[in-house]
């Protein structure tokens, strides 16, 4: 098996890209478009929030256990349909959040527990990130968007 620079099997990487964009790519595009529009957490914080937005929708920028956690609700105008509603960073590195059907949130760092708000999920992630460690740039996320019977077809790098 040929292994690419990130340790990912080259075939697997290619197969992901043939389908819908991966969350990694979505995140990359989202950051680029947010930058193009001059959006930053501090700007987003001053934007009017959706009517339903209570305290749980408010942008945050705080230091928790020595790590800077920032998050803002991505304006719908620059949000891709399959991208996250929230842009969260820990020390400047993206932290991918996923939403549960009950409305709670979970992160790539803490994948088997969900939290009531994005800021709680971000804090829980910090609790688990070891000393001296950082989230990888373009933290991996799921591909999503597949349909039953119309999957990737291939073995996705895992061969029998």
């Amino acid at each position, binding site marked *: 098996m040929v292994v690419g620079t990130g340790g*990912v099997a080259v075939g697997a990487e290619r197969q992901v890209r043939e389908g819908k964009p991966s969350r990694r790519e979505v995140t990359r595009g989202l950051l680029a478009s947010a930058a193009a529009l001059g959006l930053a957490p501090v700007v987003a914080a001053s934007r009017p929030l959706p009517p339903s937005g209570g305290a749980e929708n408010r942008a945050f920028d705080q230091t928790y256990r020595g790590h800077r956690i920032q998050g803002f609700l991505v304006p719908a105008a620059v949000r891709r349909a399959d991208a996250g509603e929230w842009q969260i960073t820990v020390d400047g590195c993206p932290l991918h959040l996923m939403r549960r059907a009950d409305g709670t949130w979970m992160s790539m760092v803490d994948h*088997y527990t969900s939290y009531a708000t994005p800021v709680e999920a971000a804090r829980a992630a910090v609790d688990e990130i070891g000393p001296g460690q950082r989230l990888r740039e373009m933290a991996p996320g799921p*591909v*999503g*968007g597949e349909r039953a019977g119309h*999957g990737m077809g291939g073995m996705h790098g895992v061969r029998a």
Partner: protein
Amino acid sequence: MAYVRKNAAALTANEKRRFVNALLEVKRRGEYDAFVRTHIDYYTADGEEGLRAAHMAPSFLPWHRRFLLELERALRRVDSSVTVPYWDWTRDRGTTSVPWTKDLLGGNGRKSDRQVTTGPFAYAAGHWTIKEGITDGKYLTRDLGRAAAPIQLPTRSALQWALDDPAYDVSPWDSTVTRGFRNKLEGWGTGGGSASWHNHNRVHRWVGGVMLGGASVNDPVFWLHHAFLDYQWYRWQQAHKNHRYLPATQPGPGDKQRGRVVARLDKMPPWNVTPDSLEDVSGIYRYA
């Protein structure tokens, strides 16, 4: 002739050594990291769009069954005597009991940075560098029992609570269902805090470190944990012989879960195999 998956506590010294060496060789060949990546890629949560194949879905069990079979095939290409052992966490419940021994998976992470420093998967041993991780940490981490706020592994009665449910799964087939064997075993509870973590999820939480994140496959205990869960699926089938994998067919038009779950005869990515074809694997392996 079906091969046998054994309790990790019953392995001989030779069987442990061969299992560990096969894992290290699969890692050395670059195959292991593709397994880590696949698990990350197929983790779609139920509050998001798209098909859920691996988690928060009825196909949680067949998806991981096939995933285990793929790993086991990779191991058996290295050493045809090897099978994936299971960790019975209802019996082996301590931080120094099986499988946390130097001759199997190594021990707990150290206090300062949770780094595993004992056994074959310790970073310093030179064979287990994490490449597909959520953080940039290169070493395996564990926090057995969660030192900062201790929790216990699921009990035998918690597992029995799942096994006693005659329904395989129920609509809406996600993490919010409070009935059905699948979610009682997968372990998504309601509310917050440790009381809401059941069976499968609770074990990921108890091991901690990389086992808690999307790249949990980086800890080889992932396979021993999922082999035990796979065994429970077999036990559930034996206890409820008139019940099968559900849903039998796709949810109807207008149902929000239509196209988001794998029905019994649907093809499950990334392997394009049906749950139906994975319900009976007695021709491939059995548990002892």
